[in-house]
């Protein structure tokens, strides 16, 4: 019996708003591929071809994306988002024997998958600096002794990656709201769950975590030069340029950088390491982009400087836009969170020239009109706001 993989991609990822307002977390592009696609690639590299994807939140977008891949992926609908174990239950009758269960919105490399494939009834774990955002696991020898989902105070640094290898008898018993609860209940009733250490694993809890995830995944790209590149362009390191993209004279790109299809960049633009630029993006002369994620259809006018930023689809940034990477607390409805970014921008933002952002979150379809030289620092602008 071949091992099947079930990818749970029905969740929204509310803490990544505004980026997940219009798309599930699994579809956020990292290194120009949705997160779920990186997971699918790792599965294929590990030799697992029988893949089931559970979809729910904004499911049409996920399905549309999966049809672009040349793979026989089975789709299962989760009508209501009642937790990860319920999502797995929805896919139960598609699973013939044992299965690997993975989250669609984390990055897992092929070595980790190959590791857990060897051990039946196992859980993949790793260590993390902020364990209380995850399911914290306690381990005795190579056995898991408990899982506590998002504890207020974590006394261990070991966290669950949300990747399981479950035998068919265990799959039948996954009926609790979340996988962590279901597994914890199993452990307490005496089932032995083996702990397998992950090789490389990345999750993004908050939008600024996407930047380090992006940096990490950019280290795996290979150089591509399909566009038309002016002879005076300077390229260092690994740079991938998609087909139909035009890079104007005098542009400097320091890899690792990935640029999608049909972009127009330059002349005289600087793109620094750790940057992903989606398809059909236009970056006008004399702009500098550092360690950022620029999604599809964005226009960045001349003389702009962005660092440590995530720009959503279809944003238009006027001339002399600046986003400076800095740290600070951003106030929310309930308390504040510590953030470290230039600007996190939702989809379809329009921004007039000469605006400065520092450590700011801008919601979807915000319009920033009015006078120039506005400065935003450590604030969150809600969706559809008009700033006059």
């Amino acid at each position, binding site marked *: 019996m071949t091992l099947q993989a079930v990818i749970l991609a029905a969740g929204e990822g509310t803490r990544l708003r505004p980026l997940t307002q*219009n798309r599930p977390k699994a579809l956020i592009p990292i290194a120009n591929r949705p997160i779920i696609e990186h997971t699918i690639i790792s599965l294929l590299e590990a030799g697992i071809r029988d893949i089931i994807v559970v979809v729910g939140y*904004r499911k049409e977008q996920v*399905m549309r994306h999966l*049809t672009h891949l*040349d793979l026989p992926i089975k789709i299962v609908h989760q009508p209501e988002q009642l937790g990860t174990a319920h999502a797995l239950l929805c896919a139960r009758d598609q699973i013939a024997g044992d299965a690997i269960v993975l989250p669609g919105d984390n990055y897992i490399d092929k070595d980790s998958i190959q590791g857990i494939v060897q051990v039946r009834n196992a859980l993949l774990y790793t260590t993390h600096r902020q364990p209380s955002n995850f399911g914290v696991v306690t381990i005795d020898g190579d056995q898991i002794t408990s899982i506590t989902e998002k504890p207020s105070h974590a006394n261990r640094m070991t966290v669950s990656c949300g990747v399981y290898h479950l035998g068919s008898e265990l799959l039948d018993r996954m009926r609790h709201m979340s996988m962590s609860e279901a597994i914890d209940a199993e452990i307490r009733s005496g089932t032995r769950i083996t702990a397998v250490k992950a090789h490389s694993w990345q999750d993004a809890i908050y939008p600024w975590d996407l930047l380090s995830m992006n940096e990490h995944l950019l280290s795996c790209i290979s150089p591509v030069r399909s566009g038309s590149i002016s002879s005076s362009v300077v390229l260092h390191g690994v740079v991938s340029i998609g087909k139909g993209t035009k890079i104007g004279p005098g542009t400097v790109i320091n890899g690792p950088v990935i640029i999608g299809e049909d972009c127009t960049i330059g002349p005289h633009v600087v793109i620094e390491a750790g940057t992903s630029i989606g398809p059909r993006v236009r970056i006008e002369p004399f702009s500098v982009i550092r360690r950022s994620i620029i999604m599809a*259809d964005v226009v960045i006018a001349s003389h702009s400087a962005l660092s440590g930023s995530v720009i959503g689809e*279809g944003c238009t940034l006027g001339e002399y836009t600046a986003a400076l990477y800095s740290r600070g607390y951003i106030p929310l409805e309930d308390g504040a969170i510590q953030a470290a970014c230039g600007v996190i921008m939702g989809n379809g933002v329009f921004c007039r020239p000469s605006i400065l952002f520092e450590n700011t979150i801008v919601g979807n379809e915000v319009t920033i009109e009015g006078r120039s030289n506005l400065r935003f620092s450590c604030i969150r602008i809600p969706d559809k706001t008009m700033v006059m």
Partner: protein
Amino acid sequence: MCGIVGYTGYRSAAPILIEGLKRLEYRGYDSYGIATLASEISIHKKAGRVSDLADSAHILMGNIGIGHTRWATHGIPSDINAHPHQDCTNQIAVVHNGIIENYAHLKRELIGRGHTFKSETDTEVIAHLIEEAYQGDLLDAVRKILPRLVGSYAILVISTGDTRLIAARNQSPLVLGIGDGEIFAASDITPILEHTSRVIYLDDGDIAELAPDSYTVYFGDHPAEREICEITWAPETVQKGGFTHYMLKEIFEQPDVIYQAIHAVSEETLPLSLRQASSITVVACGSSYHAGMIFRYLIEPACGIPVRLELGSEYKYSPVPFSDVVVGISQSGETADTLAAIRKGVCNNIKTVAITNVLNSSITRSAHDTILMHAGPEISVAASKSFIAQLGVLMQIVNILSGRRCDEVLHHARYAIEQALLTDLTEAVDLCSTAEHLFYVGRGVFYPVMMEGALKMKEISYIHAEAYAAGEIKHGPFALLSSETPVIAICTPGPTYDVMLGNLKEIKARGTPIIAIGYDDDHDVRDIADVLIPISRGHPWIHVLTATVILQLLAYHTANRLGREIDMPRNLAKSVTVE
């Protein structure tokens, strides 16, 4: 309108034919049949859908066969009238797509010579004619009888004692697929794609002789060279991929489609005849006609070029066109009426331009110039992405002719449609799905947008939906309004805003529920409307696109709520290849 498929090769023919017919079901689905040839011809044919009934057909023996899925034109849908048809001796089997116009005459002649007819179809005459002409060589027999047929046809013929499959085409589509040690023939490439990507589009008057490892195409008596095209559409693109219906999948493909369509025309590739035109005639049918109407509203003020707009089926009753160029719009490129209009233009020495989705379709070979809209294969009978693609092409033409004033707007189109796909329509669907009649009203360029919205609603939900120009409401339709007839209106800031608001107030005063498409924060509209469907801010062109998408989704979700057959609405077929 029917679909045909043929196979000769090393595999068992029946399963391949059945799978192929399932893919062609959109072309007709009231009855189907297949014939395979081992030592004798065995036939399985039935009234009903191939996807519901065909399991028992897989057992037919033989490596060569033909199949047909029917959309009745002559004779009711029944087991007997289903194709394939045979001659008196059951030695020959024929499938046919098209209409033999002189069949009544031929039938009388054949009966007079002692033939007995089993069915009421026009196709059966072909089988009997071949029987008479057959002297040991099937190719010769088919070649001899073709001049006797008047009308349109794509036929596939097999005969006992002959290992070849004979295909012939005149004015109905027919494509050959060239595999390794096997050859396919079909009405379009969808059934072929999963087996091979190398295809040949036959021309009118072609006869092809097909054997597992060789094929020859004849034009008249002489062998003819036909180019092999490599198809880049992946077979996955014609599968559902988790979507409940093809239509929903196609609606969600529209962001990419609009981008492709806008980039399908550029200043360099715009046909010279269009660039120099001082007047344009647009001929189209159905959804394409609405696209043409939007084109007229956009180009006349922007470029001052007068546009005459005609329905394909009515154009033949008009005198010779007086404009410089005739533009025919057809998704399939096979729409008989639009094709006739293009041919009429060519006959009258007028430049013609075809806008179509299918490379090498009949219209591309008749028109002087072709603009392909690159929407990819559309399976759902109700047009969605092909309509958006037509708008993309037409808007880009207006943009180029008016000096590229709207480059920025068109750049934004893809993203705007992506956003429109997220619109929540639950309340509007609640209202529409319980109604028996719906009225769509709009002004200016939004009038044709509403016509398209109403057409979608009619097509797939079977709710009676009519579109009116808002000013026309008072000239009659007002009498029909009541609390039972919801009105769907679009009211966005612009030259039509104030008048439209006035019209809506009058409608509201009759107690009619109003579903308004407008800005989320527009309190005037919100106060009048029972349901407000929010549309994002932008240029009027963007509103045309996003409102279209919203109305498609409204029709889809309403039909889905009512449990309709969305991809294959009753009584409708994908492309209308008869007049």
